[in-house]
């Protein structure tokens, strides 16, 4: 029976899907022994302006001085559903210590699917709807979940692509909360830490 050509196109699409992870099945997560990067190795987290469920604009600079867990997720993502309850617990335990979780939904259908999803899970932290521009400035987020730990200075201290362990998040947040703010103590530290973002501080998005 004659068969139309498909598998090469399909395989190409799958290759594109796995491009970011290097086609491996394991996430590139930081080991629990070193849950965050050294201060001098951290780069500024890109700024964004996205809308929350109330239509208010949320910017990363709103969280300056706080430790932030920035979670890119989607309602169709099984691994994301495993991590979200952990993040709810972390929000509950640490919100009074200068910590916040911010979810970024990558659902094309937007609030129509995200609002009921959040209500069903009882999500207790702020969520915004992401877009391709934001995903691009964060390194081309494709695999979900992709989670960033951002220190009090707005620097990316850790990145977890794919399902990580609850412990690695707990350890990373604990370490960042103990950090008084990654204060640059001398000129040598200042010169190493002053990498400017390669884009404007304010990114106007939907």
């Amino acid at each position, binding site marked *: 029976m*004659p068969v*139309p050509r498909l598998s090469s196109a399909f395989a190409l699409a*799958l290759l594109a899907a796995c491009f970011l992870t290097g086609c491996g099945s394991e996430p590139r997560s930081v080991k629990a022994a070193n849950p965050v990067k050294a201060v001098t190795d951290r780069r500024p987290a890109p700024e964004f302006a996205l809308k929350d469920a109330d239509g208010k604009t949320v910017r990363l600079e709103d969280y300056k001085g706080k430790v932030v867990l920035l979670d890119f997720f989607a309602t169709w993502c*099984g691994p994301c559903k*495993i991590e979200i309850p952990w993040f709810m617990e972390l929000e509950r335990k640490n919100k009074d210590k200068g910590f916040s979780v911010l979810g970024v939904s990558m659902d094309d259908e937007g609030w129509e699917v995200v609002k009921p999803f959040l209500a069903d899970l009882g999500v207790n932290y702020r969520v915004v709807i992401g877009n391709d521009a934001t995903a691009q400035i964060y390194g081309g987020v494709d695999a979900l*979940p992709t989670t960033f730990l951002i220190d009090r200075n707005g620097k990316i201290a850790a990145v977890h692509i*794919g399902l990580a362990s609850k412990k690695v998040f707990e350890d990373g947040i604990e370490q960042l909360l103990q950090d008084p703010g990654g204060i640059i103590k001398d000129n040598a530290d200042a010169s190493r830490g002053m990498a400017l973002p390669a884009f404007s501080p304010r990114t106007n998005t939907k």
Partner: protein
Amino acid sequence: MGEPQKVAGKRNAVLQVKIPVTVKEGYHVNSNQPSEEYLIPLKLTWTAMGALEGGTVTYPKPALEKYEFSEQPLSVYTGGFLLVANFKVAANAPAGPGAATGKLRYQACSNRACYPPKTVDITVSYQVQ
């Protein structure tokens, strides 16, 4: 890969077209009837069928696989499998070549991460005899 063979038949003939699909090792796609409501199913739809009618798709039997992120086994396809499209040549089909076009939507995951749903174009070339 070479050009696909054309499907051929007379008016009113029944045609079954096998569409091979390959999922890269280490990944899976949800089946056409996923275990959970929130999962995006594999779905082939036809956008234009030309002189062909019907186009119902027969999906293979899925596997039930347990993953790190799922409490229960998921209904998935892995590796190579075939979709079968069932057509009938229209009674008034003009003789000659034609093509049916469609879209295959899928959503893939590894054991620990998921990727946005994607759509690929499908073309079935046929000849009405």
